[in-house]
């Protein structure tokens, strides 16, 4: 009886349309926020921040972004890596061009720049659908990575062709560059994750979200109801780009500090985020988190288990990871094609009636 809705009645429409209509969910959400903001920063160390928490938070933002496009609006995109690169390079250019402005503003602006670029690459979606659209976004992936390699202006004509994030502070605390503390990295990412998740949730529960889902489920009926398909699709591309851009900017400036575009934002990144969204659950904000957690934690967990626990050689563990991760993904998708979010929903439905299911 951990989870129940008996006696939990909504008496007004605002109450009924809130994000967590069930009391237990609401309290759990506040508890998680409290722990994330008030407890973890004091205990987090370099290993946990760099190997687990920071990548998890950043990939969650990217997954939310892709989930809005693919899960809510039904437009498949394979360009996530390239779009994250746009965010990273936009952030880099802004940081070096306007050093006196806060890096937080730069990260947001990088999101805005990415939104514009992604909208541009979203234009073909008005004519083509499904696999064909996926292929056209694949073109965006390769084009963008190529462009960031070939045009020296983007990496400020540096000899190596890499970009490195200069040291910047927020309220006197170093948040980018090599001297950043683990907790500061964590906090910056956490703030952006919370911000993005709340925005995404607000949009998906209101009329904008319904427009996207209408386009996803049946575009002809959506149009007859008064949804302008052009605006609905492009707004999904823009919002998705905004989040993915923020994720890319954080990935570069806060997490890695220095990147080489082919390595950091190659096609594997596009697939990684897409897998997160599929495994987590299409059309669910929670699913974006679940998918990101699954794919970030799994390698860490297996490595600790095999190398740390059983004393196996690292390279063996590395290869075993591919086998196990691949296997798990297949098993998961066979058991629950709608992802972890659906498993979670089913579990909640069972828990509501537990321990008296009849």
């Amino acid at each position, binding site marked *: 009886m951990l989870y129940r809705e008996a006696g939990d009645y909504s008496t007004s429409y605002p109450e009924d349309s809130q994000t967590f209509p069930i009391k237990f969910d609401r309290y759990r959400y506040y508890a998680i926020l409290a722990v994330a903001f008030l407890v973890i920063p004091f205990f987090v160390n370099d290993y946990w921040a760099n190997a687990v928490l920071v990548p998890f938070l950043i990939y969650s933002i990217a997954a939310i972004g892709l989930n809005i496009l693919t899960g809510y609006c039904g437009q498949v995109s394979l360009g996530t890596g390239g779009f994250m690169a746009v965010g990273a390079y936009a952030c880099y250019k802004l940081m070096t061009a306007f050093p006196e402005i806060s890096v937080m503003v730069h990260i947001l602006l990088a999101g805005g720049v990415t939104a514009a670029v992604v909208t541009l690459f979203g234009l073909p979606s008005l004519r083509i659908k499904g696999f064909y659209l996926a292929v056209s976004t694949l073109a965006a992936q390769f084009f963008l990575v190529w462009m960031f390699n070939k045009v020296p202006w983007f990496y400020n004509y540096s000899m190596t062709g890499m970009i490195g994030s200069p040291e910047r502070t927020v309220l006197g605390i170093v948040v980018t560059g090599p001297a950043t503390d683990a907790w500061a990295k964590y906090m910056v990412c956490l703030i952006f994750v919370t911000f993005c998740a709340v925005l995404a949730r607000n949009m998906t529960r209101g009329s904008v979200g*319904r*427009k996207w889902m209408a386009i996803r489920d049946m575009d002809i*009926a959506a149009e007859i*109801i008064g949804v302008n398909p052009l605006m609905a699709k492009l707004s999904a591309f823009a919002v998705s780009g905004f989040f993915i851009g923020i994720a890319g900017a954080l990935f570069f400036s806060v997490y890695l500090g220095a990147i080489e575009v082919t390595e950091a934002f190659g096609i594997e990144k596009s697939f990684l985020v897409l897998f997160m969204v599929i495994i987590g659950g299409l059309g669910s904000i929670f699913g974006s988190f679940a998918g990101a957690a699954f794919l970030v934690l799994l390698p860490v967990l297996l490595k600790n288990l095999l190398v740390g626990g059983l004393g196996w050689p690292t390279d063996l563990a590395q290869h075993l990871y591919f086998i196990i991760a691949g296997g798990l993904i297949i098993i998961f998708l066979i058991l629950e094609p709608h992802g972890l979010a659906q498993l979670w929903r089913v579990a909640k439905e069972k828990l509501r009636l537990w321990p008296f299911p009849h």
Partner: protein
Amino acid sequence: MSNESEGNFVTTDGRNIGGVMMEMKNITLRFGGVVALENISFNILEGEVRAIIGPNGAGKSSMLNVISGFYIPQEGEVIFQGSPRPSLKPFEVAHQGIARTFQNIALFEGMSVLDNVMTGRLTKMKTGIFSQMIWAGKAEREEIENREAVEKIIDFLEIQAIRKTPVSRLPYGLKKRVELARALAAEPNLLLLDEPMAGMNVEEKQDMSRFILDVNSEFGTTIALIEHDMGVVMDLSDRVVVMDYGRKIGDGTPDEVRNNQEVIDAYLGVSHD
């Protein structure tokens, strides 16, 4: 009843029929060499229930698609509320106050009943994406106002119990009803129903007929419907257009149409000797 095709009269059951809401003038629609609609003219009066009937392939659905903007006719014009309508996109037609349902249910399967019906109100929801992001304030207020309107329709169509159910879990008859709810949510001036009773049993048909008549009399919505069940059509509608092979072969009250020789021939067949 002076001149029924011009409108402005009172029906025998006491409903006021107004002037001409929509007039189709010499509509011709071709797909390559196939003539789907040939020089068709008829009008729809404000507040009436107008039926379009005809054998399979007569062009009824094409006619509805012309009205709702899916097809642009090669010739002729559509006059809506007094002025000729330029060729609009379907979503622009929706904003003019024309809603419709589909022959094969076209609900949003991934959404709940409530969300589906709320989608019907998109033409009434104006807040931009940025206030949506913030939610508190304008977006929430608008959401609640529209929710109230939607709940009235949910009550009206007696689907309260399933409002949170995903549409994909509903049986066929209820899906048809939810689709009607979604169309009604837009508070349309003109409601187009494409075979609202296809595949239903007698009870479901009775329910649906009652809802259609209630919509017409309580909200004053003008209704144009396509239906194959002659009993239903003759009972529900004020006036009937009969089509066959893309041509109009009859137009008038149910009684007039029933006794029209051409209509009888089209439906029963005529011997060619």
